[in-house]
């Protein structure tokens, strides 16, 4: 599914300073029963966000009205565990276009890139600085510039560059996806199939 082009994102952010956030927390398995990609944002972090009686847990950052924005800042090793792309869909559907962390699990990172959410890996020091800045002022804005591969904390002006391979970068800047690419080289793939022994 093609998605919106990503160029520069400048918004406030939600902080989630927990480490090893796994995709079972991002979206628990019992919400994976849909056959369409709709409404997953409602259940993003379901069990951290709501009590068993469905009332919101007031101290969870996503429920705290002082936070806003299209960026989610997460602790180290974000997105580990299950390969469920539903986790990335839930992040997207809630309104996030970017996740910042000091380390991402592989599959989650790939899933994000495939659906138009930009994973931005920063140093642990910078991550802590971002958490600190948001804590001091929840309206703190962060600027993510994909073309120049930089992330800037606007309150201090401090900035870091981040990695993304040039192919994925082009895709995100243009809102293309891998299937568009693969469809275009189908002839080449069909030739390759003939060489496979099984």
């Amino acid at each position, binding site marked *: 599914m093609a998605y919106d082009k990503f160029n520069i994102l400048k918004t406030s952010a939600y902080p989630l300073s927990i480490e090893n956030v796994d995709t079972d927390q991002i979206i628990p398995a019992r919400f994976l*029963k849909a056959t369409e990609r709709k409404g997953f944002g409602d259940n993003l972090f379901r069990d951290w966000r709501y009590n068993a009686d469905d009332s919101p847990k007031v101290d969870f950052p996503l429920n705290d009205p002082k936070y806003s924005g299209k960026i989610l800042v997460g602790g180290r090793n974000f997105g580990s565990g299950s390969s469920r792309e539903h986790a990335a869909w839930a992040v997207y559907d809630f309104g996030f276009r970017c996740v910042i962390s000091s380390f991402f699990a592989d599959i989650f990172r790939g*899933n994000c890139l495939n659906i138009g959410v930009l994973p931005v890996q920063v140093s642990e020091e910078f991550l802590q600085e971002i958490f600190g800045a948001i804590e001091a002022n929840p309206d703190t804005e962060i600027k993510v510039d994909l073309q120049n591969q930089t992330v800037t904390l606007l309150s201090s002006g401090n900035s870091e560059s981040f990695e993304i391979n040039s192919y994925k970068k082009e895709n995100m800047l243009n809102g293309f996806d891998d299937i568009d690419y693969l469809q275009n080289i189908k002839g080449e793939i069909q030739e390759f199939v003939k060489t496979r022994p099984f």
Partner: protein
Amino acid sequence: MSNTLFDKVWDAHVVRKIEGGPDVFFIDRHLIHEVTSPVAFLGLKTRGIQVMEPKRTFATADHNTPTINQHLPVEDPLSANQLRALEENSKEHGILHWGLGHENNGIVHVVGPENGITLPGATIVCGDSHTSTHGAFGAIAFGIGTSEVEMVLSTQCIMQPKPKKMRINIVGKLNKAVTPKDVALYIISQLSTSGATGYFVEYAGDVFEEMSMEGRMTVCNLSIEMGARGGMIAPDEKTFDYIKGRKFTPKGADWDTAMEYWKTLKTDADATFDKEYTFNASDIEPMITYGTNPGMGMGISNQIPQSDTVKDGKATYEKSLSYMGYEQGESMIGKTIDFVFVGSCTNGRIEDFRSFASIVKGRKKADNVTAWLVPGSHKVEAQIKEEGILDILTDAGFALREPGCSACLAMNDDKVPAGKYAVSTSNRNFEGRQGPGSRTLLASPLVAAAAAVTGKVTDPRELMA
């Protein structure tokens, strides 16, 4: 040039290299199930494209299926809907489908190897992170997201940057009651849940050479829990014996040609890895986890580590222990438990049930324990019956359920209630993984059996002759 096993298999599947980008990577065999495939089929429909190679995709229903009364209609309408979608999508695109009740049905990573879908030197993907299981046969196998499922359906390829290479050697001989599960939990406890992120692992050394195919599958299965995309073991005579004659294994002259190739699938003596670890088999004890990720495991006779000695942040560590209701410095031995779950693609094969039965034989299930014994497939179930294991289980007060993922991810009704403790042979002890508020202790089938008959965490060595 000298190459690793991983290089040999990877490089043979690269259709095209993209400068500064991923490889266009060809997939030999693709497994699908009801949970991560419907949106991919929807994507095909939206784009108006067909499945390119339907014979390379295999469908089984497992994640969201009941483990009792499978002959009756599925009660939960959402689950029933997903199962119907899998069946209809498979039919529409000419994909082989093993639905509920089919003799070949079972957990995707159990039925793949059983039916010879899994082969050495092949590339195998599935929308499930434990696809790494198939690496036990010298295949490159890993989990993918739904967008990638759509890519494989439409072009039999995905776009993947080649991971870095890691080798993990375990030398020497395993101690009594130390199973492949303990080996894997030990490695994860040493490397942490992110220690192998970005890498593909090859397991090598005496311990893996001597290990059964079932055991190798358990180890490769858990590769993802240390962050690795997958793990693999070079194929050998055991591998060839296992796959020979299975449903989708090459036959006749094709077998001979394949064998010639498969015999070349080993890491060359002077090939190098980006990272290498070596552990001593004798350092490994039966393992148990005490926290909320699979890296929080220890030898069963040890104490829960103090927060200032762990790699994760203190706050994260303490949050995890408080969720579990445990304290730093405590022993796990003697902790009361409420549930025992034996099953999943990690430990739901015949060897696991043999192992469980070896301890419960002649004993009785503890009254405070609810036990869910869930075979990985109908074939495993049949073998449990044939080998007389079912009689041992029944005599000890246990019942056998029907195959499926069950309490491994608790999408169906097999949910551990909030606050309750389960000793589970599955792969994840995340918060709420086995049901909202559930608390999971990961362990081997032997440790699970010892817990099931004593009602508390017990060292299985005490119950073994």
